[in-house]
């Protein structure tokens, strides 16, 4: 399936782009992260410490074990600091 992957804050900076379109058969967010981290050193650095990474699937907060079936947009970002 085709998924738009979005990056925010320092993940965006580390990876060097705000988004990319990926072809994946990953069943969960965790499997998608493994695929992305294997791409290059920048992706690997961004996903090196997953305790510092949060995720949203189709704009809803999700955890690493969330299923990806049917997802169109997956976003990765650091813990939020609004307000």
């Amino acid at each position: 399936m085709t998924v738009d992957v979005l990056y925010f804050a320092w993940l965006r900076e580390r990876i060097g782009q705000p988004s990319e379109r990926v072809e994946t058969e990953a069943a969960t967010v965790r499997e998608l992260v493994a695929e992305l981290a294997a791409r290059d050193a920048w992706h690997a650095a961004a996903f090196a410490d997953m305790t510092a990474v949060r995720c949203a699937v189709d704009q809803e907060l999700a955890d690493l074990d969330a299923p990806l079936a049917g997802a169109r947009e997956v976003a990765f970002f650091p813990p939020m600091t609004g307000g």
Partner: protein
Amino acid sequence: MVARVQAAPFDLAAELAGFGAGAGAQVTFTGIVRDDSGRMAALEIEHYPGMTEAALTAHGLEAARRFGLIDWRIVHRHGRLEVGAQIMMVATAARHRRAAFEAADYLMDWLKSRAPFWKREIGHDGSAHWVEAKASDEAALDRW
């Protein structure tokens, strides 16, 4: 019952015009860019367009149900904000003060740790670093 994300400043008085008719209690919270180190010139706030307003609206509605609010409003800015500038505001209106206070407090705890905003501190020397989330902000949400 309004949530907005905008670059422009907001006017608290204008936001409260006609707000919460029939309420006995209104509470507002305003967050302001604060320089603790003496080296900060501004904050830069990034958000997740598309997700942000939907998440703010969904959460405002949830707070309204939970605390029985008559009205609520959330305005959050993004982009570069100088020290002393407003960052965001929450307003709540309820029949009684307890609900208005608790709902505003709850919405702030939620905004701090669950709304898709990220802050970067910009120094007078041009340096920039991302503000790390505080464990205390995550923990604050567990109170509810």
